[in-house]
């Protein structure tokens, strides 16, 4: 069988029904095989969007996302998307075309060493040297991407390899001697953790993105309810625990809520669950007091002890470990501690100004969205307006590029999300800067009739950078997006409807219109550039 056809068959074997990509000369054999298959191919308008869409698709579907690009510029355009997926532990299999094997290393047309270039931000990568290795490599790639701590795996496919003739086979099992991720938590460590929890007076759960990745929501809810322990979460852990639950405290981090950060500093024991305690979360670990006891549960042993010292590490799949713990955890009387935390919580007030208050806009939208809605934020002020004011009801989902903070992530990731879950409402929130980093995807949205809603907060500036400049230097520069286009008219050019909102009082009707509209819709909200993030 022609190798390219075998490759497409491997994808089918792996349950892939949708791929995101952009063709070119050195990937044409794979594309020819795709043409003859039932796999849906979404033609993006720039390769970075293929990786972001596959990322959004993976996060919503729970499957491994697949994206494809040609050699050279196609492959290098993918890089930002691959790095973004790596930082947020998103399972992707990334296929790139490569120049013919005999020409590799000679700087021929459209040659780029994508394996070397992506070494530090792929979980693993391959340059296929022998077509006979393809079945093993594909089997391994999907296994590596989706197990343990998930991440992107890249397979570089030289042109001649795609055209080679190989006997078709697909291995049932994988054997990689150096890769055996731990699944079950160590019983002794779990016992120690439970004892430490029992001894603590003010225990706190800190949930991270790992809970969302491991889909351990039910187990976490049970763990908190059975033990009585309240929950804070990171940006990536948003949605790990329902925000309408009495044990819910809030989001921590440099852009989190001060009462949630304060809760961490008041706790005498914190159970980190799938949180890598990045610098933006722990603010240089200042919020973690010296004498605090830390139980750290993570699938990646390298995350434990990297940023903060840990007393009790537990390595394994969060869902499995939480199940193990749930069997033995005892109810604690945390009523006084919960009461203290409840009293610290401040209610948000939303003022109305000259232009749209973006925080209020998100809160109004959140109130109108369904119980299964997905919100995808871009990067900048808009990201935190969204993260702070979108309510995590059970069944909802919030996504953002947390580790990399990649502008232009929101719209293509929302495309992937909508394709993965056509029946759920999907909203992309972005700024005028980030929108223009991915606005070419309006083409993909229009062509594929992707029914997603875009909320664009237009402050005519790179708002978050401007805010930092003002704070640090007392003045700002190079952040004004002068002569922004008429975004609503731009959407219209693609046949996408939209409205511009300049006052809070028009928000409700604009969102009603957007949500009842069949098909993609843009709501542009005009925002004062001096609006603060927090």
């Amino acid at each position, binding site marked *: 069988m022609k190798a390219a056809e075998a490759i497409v068959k491997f994808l089918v074997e792996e349950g892939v029904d949708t791929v995101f990509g952009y063709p070119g000369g050195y990937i044409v054999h794979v594309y020819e095989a795709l043409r003859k298959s039932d796999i849906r191919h979404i033609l993006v308008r720039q390769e970075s969007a293929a990786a972001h869409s596959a990322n959004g698709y993976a996060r919503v579907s729970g499957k491994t996302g697949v994206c494809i690009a040609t050699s050279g510029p196609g492959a290098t355009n993918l890089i930002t998307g691959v790095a973004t997926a790596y930082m947020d532990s998103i399972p992707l299999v990334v296929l790139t075309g490569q120049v013919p094997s005999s020409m590799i290393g000679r700087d021929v047309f459209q040659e780029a060493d994508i*394996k*070397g270039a992506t*070494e*530090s931000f792929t*979980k*693993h990568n391959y*340059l296929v*040297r022998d077509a006979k290795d393809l079945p093993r490599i594909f089997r391994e790639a999907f296994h*590596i991407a989706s197990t343990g701590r998930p991440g992107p795996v890249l397979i570089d496919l030289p042109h001649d390899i795609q055209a080679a003739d190989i006997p078709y086979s697909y291995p049932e099992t994988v054997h*990689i*001697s*150096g*890769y*055996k991720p*731990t699944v079950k938590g*160590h019983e*002794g*460590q779990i016992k120690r953790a439970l004892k430490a929890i029992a001894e603590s007076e003010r225990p706190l759960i800190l949930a991270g993105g790992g809970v969302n990745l491991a889909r351990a929501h039910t187990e976490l809810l049970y763990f908190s309810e059975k033990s009585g322990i309240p929950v804070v979460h990171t940006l990536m852990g948003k949605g790990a625990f329902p925000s309408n639950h009495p044990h819910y405290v809030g989001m921590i981090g440099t852009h989190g809520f001060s009462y949630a950060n304060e809760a961490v500093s008041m706790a005498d024991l914190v159970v980190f669950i799938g949180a890598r305690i990045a610098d933006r979360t722990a603010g240089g670990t200042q919020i973690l007091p010296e004498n605090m006891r830390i139980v750290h549960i993570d699938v*990646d*042993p*390298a995350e434990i*002890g*990297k940023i903060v010292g840990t007393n009790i590490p537990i*390595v394994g799949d969060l869902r499995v470990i939480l199940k193990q713990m749930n069997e033995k955890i005892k109810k604690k009387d945390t009523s006084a501690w919960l009461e203290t935390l409840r009293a610290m919580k401040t209610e948000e007030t939303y003022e109305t100004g000259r232009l749209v208050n973006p925080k209020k806009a998100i809160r109004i939208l959140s109130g109108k969205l369904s119980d299964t809605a997905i919100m995808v934020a871009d990067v900048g002020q808009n990201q935190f307006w969204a993260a702070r004011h979108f309510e995590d009801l059970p069944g909802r989902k919030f996504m953002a590029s947390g580790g990399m903070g990649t502008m232009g992530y929101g719209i293509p990731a929302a495309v992937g999300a909508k394709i993965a879950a056509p029946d759920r409402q999907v909203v992309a929130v972005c700024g005028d800067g980030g929108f223009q980093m991915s606005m070419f995807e309006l083409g993909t949205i229009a062509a594929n009739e992707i029914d997603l809603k875009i909320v664009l907060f237009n402050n005519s500036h790179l708002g978050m950078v401007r805010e930092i400049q003002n704070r640090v230097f007392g003045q700002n520069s190079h952040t004004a997006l002068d002569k922004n286009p008429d975004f609503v008219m731009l959407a219209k050019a693609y046949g996408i409807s939209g409205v511009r909102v300049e006052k809070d009082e028009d928000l409700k009707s604009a969102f009603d219109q957007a949500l009842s509209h069949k098909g993609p819709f843009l709501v542009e909200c005009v925002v004062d550039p001096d609006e603060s993030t927090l």
Partner: protein
Amino acid sequence: MSVNNRHVLSVLVENQAGVLSRVSGLFSRRGYNIDSLSVGVTEDPAISRMTIVVRGDSYILEQIKKQLNKLIDVIKVIELDKDRSVFRELMLIKVNARENTRASIIEIVDIFRASVVDVSSETLTVEMTGDEDKIEAFIDLMKPYGIREIVRTGLTALERGSKEIQSYKKYGEED
């Protein structure tokens, strides 16, 4: 071994293209200091073994081991204790040697159980193996004669006794 915070790691890796770059890249990327790295194939041709001498405190060492273990091509990482292991390095050294100094150089070479592998009218080239102390001591003794060139393989090491690296648990695995 932790003199000056130096540690000797023995690392089993898949014998595949790109492994060396992945491992060395990890060190430079994460700012870990590496004194030497030597690599060669093992009794199993599909597996290579690296000996890496690194510098760092216990936190850095822990991080290095964990990050190495994360690489898919890395099969096992162990730290070798100086007292329970054999450390060896091979050095070739070319020193000035004239009629009047040749004999005394050869005397030192004999004491060190090194061997002369090449002679010219102006130089002697000596091959020697030994642990680091021995090699450094030899270099010191050669200095007065005038060292022309030195090439060293970097440390290679094996644990004493009958235990094999494969019988160690993978790092992070607990009993």
